[in-house]
């Protein structure tokens, strides 16, 4: 493993790999090594030693960090300023290892429950530095909140899983941490009714910042006996009290409503964020499916019919599913996602399955051709995480 301490180290490592035509596995702490497709690489290039916060300007709502900085370290720094990462990045229970880097979180564009109201990691990536597959240092964006100067390479790099370049520094928009959190709970609904209730919550004027449905088995994993449909409010304390009350009234037509105070709410939403409700067995696969919210229930039902378990976040728009890592199970998920006109990711699976299948949907041919040209423009030698996202 190569783990440089400065940007020049990344340049040198990439230059050498290009010269040797030796593909590199790009990672931070390796927590997502089991994600997406299996790769054949000669060496690992890690950001883990390139850590540290380079700029924190709370009154400008901006933080910059080298990409090897751990998520925990970044969040601790923000907590000192009473702030937090807006997209609420998850620390999935099924990750390998205890922590992940902020570079990895951005490169995978992973967001938590708050994404439904406040945007994804990619939405808050204001700037970055990266070393491309050409060994060149490229900056995009900056340290300001609004910037449309030139093509927005930040967006292209967020979610690119290290296939375009190695990000060395990221600048993120942050916001004040809410004073209080409240949750409204409905019990025992079916996925279909739950997704209607979530639509009512998200379509209400009360700034709902989380909207999830946990079927019974998922709810039991986090200490509830029946299925729960939950909506979250985060704001100043008085506002939370008021809005939780209003939302409860809106939800009364769906059943008996309970509310949770801040401490309980924070714990529950952390569990939802981190995929803790998934009953994952050793060797199981995990899928993530993004669909139009009203179609999430059908995805969950299709999975359930095939012996897969899961739950819904983002008002029904994000389904997590887990079950045996078989081709048949994979095809069930893919079929359900396709029928719902959504996208899917095979987040975790044993290497055998990950070698043989698509880990994300294939693009239409015209777009695939453009994608190949774009990727080649950053990594002409094809040495950065080759085949991680797409086989070709």
């Amino acid at each position, binding site marked *: 493993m190569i783990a440089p301490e400065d940007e020049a180290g990344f340049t040198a490592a990439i230059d050498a790999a290009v010269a040797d035509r030796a593909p590199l596995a790009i990672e931070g702490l390796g927590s997502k090594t089991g994600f997406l497709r299996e790769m054949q690489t000669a060496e690992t290039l890690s950001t883990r030693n390139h850590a540290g916060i380079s700029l924190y300007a709370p009154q400008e709502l901006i933080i910059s960090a080298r990409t090897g900085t751990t998520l925990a370290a970044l969040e601790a720094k923000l907590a000192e300023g009473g702030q937090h990462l807006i997209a609420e990045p998850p620390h999935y229970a099924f990750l390998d290892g205890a922590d992940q880097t902020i570079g990895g979180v951005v490169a995978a564009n992973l967001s938590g429950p708050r994404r439904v109201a406040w945007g994804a990691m990619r939405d808050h990536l204001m700037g970055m530095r990266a070393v491309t597959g050409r060994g060149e240092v490229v900056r995009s964006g900056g340290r300001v909140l609004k910037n449309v100067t030139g093509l927005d390479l930040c967006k292209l790099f967020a979610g690119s899983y290290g296939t375009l370049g190695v990000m060395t520094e990221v600048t993120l928009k942050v916001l004040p941490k809410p004073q209080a959190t409240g949750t409204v709970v409905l019990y025992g609904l079916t996925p279909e009714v739950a997704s*209607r*209730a979530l*639509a*009512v919550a998200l*379509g209400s004027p009360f700034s709902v910042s989380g909207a999830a449905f946990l079927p019974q088995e998922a709810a039991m994993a986090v200490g509830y006996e029946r299925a729960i449909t939950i909506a979250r409010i985060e704001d100043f304390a008085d506002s939370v009290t008021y809005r939780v009350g209003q939302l409860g009234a809106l939800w009364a037509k769906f059943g008996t409503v309970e509310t949770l105070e801040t401490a309980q709410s924070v714990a529950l939403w952390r569990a939802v964020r981190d995929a803790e409700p998934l009953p994952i067995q050793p060797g199981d696969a995990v899928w993530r499916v993004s669909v139009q919210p009203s179609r999430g229930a059908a995805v969950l039902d299709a999975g359930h019919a095939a012996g897969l378990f899961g739950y819904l976040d983002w008002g029904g728009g994000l389904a997590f599913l887990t079950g045996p890592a078989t081709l048949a199970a994979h095809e069930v998920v893919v079929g359900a996602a396709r029928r719902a006109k959504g996208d899917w990711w095979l987040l975790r699976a044993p290497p055998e399955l990950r070698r043989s299948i698509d880990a994300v949907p294939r693009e239409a041919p015209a777009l695939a051709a453009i994608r190949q040209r774009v990727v080649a423009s950053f990594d002409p030698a094809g040495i950065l995480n080759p085949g991680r996202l797409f086989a070709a």
Partner: protein
Amino acid sequence: MQTNFTLDQLADPNIAVADKILRSCVHCGFCTATCPTFVTVGDEDDSPRGRIYLIKDMLETGAPASTPVAFHLDRCLSCLACMTTCPSGVDYMHLIDYARVRVEETYERPAHDRALRAVLAAVLPYPARMRAALRAASLGRSVRGMIGTRGMLGQRLRAMLDLAPGAVAGRSSTERPGVFKAAGTRRARVALLAGCAQQVIDPGIHDATIRLLTRMGVEVVVAKGAGCCGALTHHLGKHDAALAFARANVAAWTREIGAGGLDAVVTDTSGCGTVLKDYGFLLRDTPESADAARIADLAVDISELLMRLAYQPSLTPPPGLVIAYHAACSLQHGQRVTEAPKALLRRAGFTMVEPRDPHLCCGSAGTYNILQPEMAGRLRARKLDTIAPLKPDAIVGGNVGCLTQLSGTAIPTIHTVVMLDWMAGGPRPDRLPSDAAIAATRPAAALAQDPEATWS
């Protein structure tokens, strides 16, 4: 915006005014969004900003108006929605007015177009000729089916016939000069612009105005020598004819000021009001410029006058009656009178609704619906499409042109002052459906709308 005029060109006072207007435009494009023709056809050339640009080019080059320039300027309704929208305060009205004169002077129109415009200018401003023409039109309607729908000429002929009322009224009370005495103590003395086409098409409007004002203690004068305000010829680019009308009116009302004094010159046709209020500019280079400015200052829409006189109803409308207020462009954009008519109708107790996009013209625009029947028809349909879902019992507005343009459906069109007069003791508008019919169409309690019912 940059302009390119030579000093020689700028010596022409008209060009100097145009230059000043063009310079105030910053080309931001806000006006495009509220322009009825741009919204309809989606072409910069049919937007205010595009027309300003076409005018700028025409004036800068000094060349005769080309066919495309005349085409796109002719398609402007002069609704002046752009002026309401414009943050820079561009005086589009005076720019397009002058451009129309330039087109009229320098552009050789096709013979049929020229002839039609001449006929309109020779007939519409004169009530007697207008009445004769309408009688002929009733006759013409019987042969409407024989007129082809293809080609501009056929479309225009059909448009004219469609706009003519079914039955032509006799001579109205305002066609001859006279004084209508105030009931009780006189609070004010005003001149009423008797005008031209309106009193032939719908004499009931003036009747209501006079009844209402005199009942409220106002003496109403129809001045000798006053006639058409000049707007019809003005918008056809026939500058001299328009000026002649304006001068005659200024002279007539100035005499009235000398004779018995005038507190206002009132109009119940908002299309005319816009021009009356502009007499100061129109006659700026004439010997009577000061008189003209004084008349312009005295000019008010009937709704403004009624607000000033603190109109109060004495009756309440029948239950269930819903009226749709249609804002005439000449009122809302030309004169910026937006609240007064609505406030009065509300005060009169009417349940009033407004369609979406109230700023968009209905396509009437003076003679526009005759000269541009296709575009006018599209705008009429659009307006009616926004009114229909409101299910009103009547469309109410302050300009006879709009009322004619929007008539012909099951919903009657009625002038604001007619409705106000009714609630103050005047006759019930005969176009309104009966109380029983109104009650029948309106369910006792409107269905409670749960907005989420539709999507959750």
